[in-house]
């Protein structure tokens, strides 16, 4: 994907997921708590309406930032809990994990917060979050029709984001092909769960053909969680 003209952002970092698109939700907030973007791919349980859900998420992160700063054992200056923090103060947390999901968080100094909720075994998503921030800058901030501080309604941004979330499969397959080419005796298994079958996206054909053709089928893995 090249739109940075040779910067080190391209090629896009592959989402280090175990299998398929296991993203559940994504939020983008600005510094004033306005939810600029909310996407969900796989969220069976909805307990609150959208607005309450966004407020809850924002509030959760706001409190977490305060708490983590307060509990920081290396910090000399202990602010009082609840006192708003200045930029640069406090440590910055980047993820938490429960038994059912992992929440990855990135906050820019300008207050743009990007949150990804994924499968609990997801790896470190900091590079991916930074990449999404770059996508935000390229396709939202630089869109002359977008007013900062309003919900994002940009088709280019949506489609690029979709492409990014789906494209990691191609990276995985390409990596597998490369490994098999150089080390034919190396066993490689790519697990593709049904959740990854792009159901209603537009750019599906190429991807599904690629997946099915280039898989090197080997004996089934010992455990369902094995990856490359």
């Amino acid at each position, binding site marked *: 994907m090249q739109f940075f003209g040779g*910067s080190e952002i391209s090629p896009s970092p592959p989402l280090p997921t175990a299998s398929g698109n296991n993203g559940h939700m994504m939020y983008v907030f600005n510094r004033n708590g306005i939810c600029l973007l909310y996407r969900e791919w796989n969220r069976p349980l909805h307990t609150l309406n959208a607005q309450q859900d966004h*407020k809850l998420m924002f509030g959760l992160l706001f409190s977490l930032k305060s708490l983590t700063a307060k509990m920081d054992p290396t910090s000399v200056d202990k602010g009082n809990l609840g006192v*708003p*923090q200045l*930029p640069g103060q406090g440590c910055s947390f980047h993820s938490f994990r429960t038994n059912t999901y992992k929440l990855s968080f990135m906050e820019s100094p*300008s207050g743009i917060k990007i949150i990804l909720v994924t499968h609990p075994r997801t790896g470190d998503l900091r590079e991916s979050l930074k990449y999404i921030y770059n996508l935000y800058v390229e396709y939202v901030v630089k869109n002359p029709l977008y007013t900062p501080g309003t919900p994002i309604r940009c088709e280019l941004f949506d489609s690029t984001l979709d492409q990014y979330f789906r494209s990691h499969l191609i990276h995985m397959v390409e990596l597998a092909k490369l490994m098999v080419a150089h080390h034919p005796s190396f066993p490689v298994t790519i697990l593709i769960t049904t959740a990854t079958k792009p159901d209603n996206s537009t750019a599906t054909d190429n991807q599904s053909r690629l997946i099915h053709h280039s898989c090197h089928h080997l004996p089934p893995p010992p455990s369902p969680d094995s990856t490359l």
Partner: protein
Amino acid sequence: MAPVAPRSGDAIFASVERVNSELFTLTYGAIVRQLLTDLEEVDEVNKQLDQMGYNIGVRLVDEFLAKSNVSRCVDFKETTEVIAKVGFKMFLGVTASVTNWDADGTSCSLILEDNPLVDFVELPDTCQGLYYCNIISGVIRGALEMVSMKTEVSWIRDMLRGDDVFELHVKLLKQVPEEYPYKDDE
């Protein structure tokens, strides 16, 4: 995974899309000229340029942060250094320097010796009082406000008025931390 180190201004400038600065200089000149015709008062034009700069700064700051990998600047001193060395470089292709710190570190001067906005520009006498580069002061003010610093930016020296450099005085008024934005707890 450790956070990536911030990139230098030169590296970023080499990696962004660039255009011939003539287009930029001429466009800005035409804009100022048109504003003078439409608004007539020099003070109004100064205000308009500052407002435009502010709006641009609010957008530009995200691009700056995304491309430069700058992590949070802990204090005002570090912030102004980063603006001078990285910010100016990655957009205008020139670096500025920071001097004249006051005792408590809340105000300083940004010195710009080379400014693409004013290439081949000479102000006629009818424009006394015009701050031709006022858009820059607006950009800095807007960008800093987005990182929670409310500042006051003003011109001390202006090459178009006969001085030898451009000097911007940047004063930190207050740091505005993020407040919990929701008033009611539903």
